[in-house]
């Protein structure tokens, strides 16, 4: 079954296309890496699929529906640097946010929500730190807390933005193991990734992007020197060149 269908998606910032004419059919039960150089539109694609950015053309369906009908079923793990780590909030409170999607507009977390929060904290081995303020954690621990928050949301699709940046070996193992477990339970994971080193180990499929879609397919097949070169090589793509003329 198709989890996400993207048809002819174009998103621009200040009239400059960040991604252009993207078509994707994503099936469930996969860990999919989104790779490409800086400024290739990886995060834009992710945010576009999450319905966070207005798009110029195209269509996105999640479980065959408009994104607004599937919000409970998707969760997003943002890049770590976007947070105010001094915010007066502890680990447990952050993870409880994952339950907000399931609560009515006016409604408070119940016993069942608290149990789920405890469970996911154990799963990422952060239960000991439940009452810690988030600044007082290591980078890897912080990443695991946000992973736990996504797990608490019990969604079917997980969007992760650069989860492996600046984490320790233990966290890397935890994230990897969780990705595998979620996949085995039929969940779908889309992961923006920067480093080409572990690509084949981490991802079943790859979306290779540099403003336009360069390739989409099984990692084994598309992670070839030619396609990597096409994605990363030559700083100026054709699209960027034509833009220079248009602008």
């Amino acid at each position: 079954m198709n989890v996400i269908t993207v048809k002819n998606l174009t998103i621009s910032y200040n009239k400059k296309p960040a991604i252009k004419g993207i078509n994707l059919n994503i099936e469930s039960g996969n860990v999919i890496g989104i790779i490409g150089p800086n400024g290739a539109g990886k995060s834009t694609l992710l945010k576009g699929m999450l319905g966070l950015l207005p798009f110029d053309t195209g269509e996105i369906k999640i479980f065959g529906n408009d994104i607004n009908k599937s919000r409970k079923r998707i969760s997003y793990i943002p890049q770590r640097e976007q947070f105010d780590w001094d915010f007066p909030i502890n680990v447990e409170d952050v993870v409880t946010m994952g339950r907000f999607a399931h609560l009515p507009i006016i409604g408070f977390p119940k016993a069942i929500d608290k149990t789920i929060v405890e469970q996911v904290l154990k799963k990422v081995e952060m239960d000991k730190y439940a009452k810690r303020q988030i600044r007082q954690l290591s980078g890897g621990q912080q990443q695991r807390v946000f992973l736990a928050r996504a797990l608490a949301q019990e969604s079917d699709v997980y969007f992760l933005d650069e989860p492996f940046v600046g984490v320790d070996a233990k966290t890397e193992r935890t994230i990897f193991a969780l990705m595998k477990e979620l996949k085995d339970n039929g969940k779908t994971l889309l992961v923006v990734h920067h480093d080409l080193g572990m690509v084949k180990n981490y991802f079943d499929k790859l979306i290779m992007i540099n403003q336009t879609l360069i390739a989409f397919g099984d990692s084994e097949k598309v992670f070839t020197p030619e396609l990597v070169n096409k994605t990363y090589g030559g700083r100026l793509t054709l699209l960027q060149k034509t833009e220079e003329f248009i602008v």
Partner: protein
Amino acid sequence: MDLLTKYLLEPVQYEFIQRALIASITIGISCGLIGTYIMLRRMSLIGDALAHAVLPGVVVSFIVAGKSEVALFIGAVISGILTVLLIGFVNRNSKIKEDTSIGIIFTGAFALGILLVSQLKQVHIDLSSYLFGDVLGVSTGDITLSLIIMVTIILCIILFYKQLLLTSFDPTMAMTIGISTTLVHYMLMTLLSMSIVAGLQSVGVILIIAMLITPPATAYLLSNSLKKILVLSSLFGMLSAVAGLYLSYHFNFASGASIVLVAVTMFMLAFLFSPKEGVVTKLIRRRGASRLVLIEDVIKLSYRFSGDENKTELTDKIANELGISNGKVESAIRTLIGKGLMNRVDGKCILTDDGKKYATRLIRTHRLWETYITKEKVTDMEHVHPEAEKIEHVLSEDIVDEIDEELGFPEKDPHGSAIPKK
């Protein structure tokens, strides 16, 4: 009746003081609560802007309806919301950044208010009481209004706690689960305008921003929990408003200014002496920490040296090794003897059994930590030693045991020295 009771109770017999007290308490709570979110969302500037921008609304309401609290409330809130909309409009439709557009719009609105007051002679608004506040001139209508405002604010914060929390901490996630950040923003702006209206009469437009951000900032220095900050912040707001009122009554100080100065004094106290973050507290703690490092270094070295040295020789050797004065080493030795970690025997300084245990524990921590950071590639070998040196004084025994376990109870450290067992 002693002097203090007289000082506190005497004013309360007057009805205008009773009104002022109730007004102060409600304003302290309203501003303290809303201000917490204003601070966390880094919107202090817009708070100040709104406080000024309600003036034209206040004047227009006066022209239309005379002195009516309801009209004043409506006028002020409308003019506040219009200002927020206008700031957003300018910001979105030009390359002007938000802080600049805030500056332009609010000063414009404020100037318009002043101009209206100065031109319309039939309006007898006492401008200075709006600008600087006059808590002693609060009317019964003002009190009803600020009570209603306070209840509304408390209800909204309780009912929409999760929306306010999530949009403040992680607006992106709020959007992904379908919470409208725009809607929450405008709700907050409406509540902010309301709390400003409540504070107009007692603190005045110029200083009301202090009531919105100073008590929350004080609370923020004292706690890491949002709920506690909300409670503390209303408490501090209340305290400063009431204390300011008394100062104003007894010494005839301007009420707005006294309230704000009390709030700022409380902030300075927290800034200097807060148990976790205080500047002075940290200084004292650092002193204590460097003293601990000295004492622990002296134990370790006494353990390493043969024990045949007399006191002077030992002091010299240690001072030489650590690159510090003999006096410091002697004072550390005195402390060690005082704590029963060291004994004077025939002019020599010998570690007691407890002292030896202490030293072994330090060495174990040091060597385990070195092994750990080498294995986790935290840093390369040449830098290992100084890193371990710094951290061995702060690692708790629990953490050391955890590291030991994680490493699989190693026998030797990266330099090949034996790691003492627990």
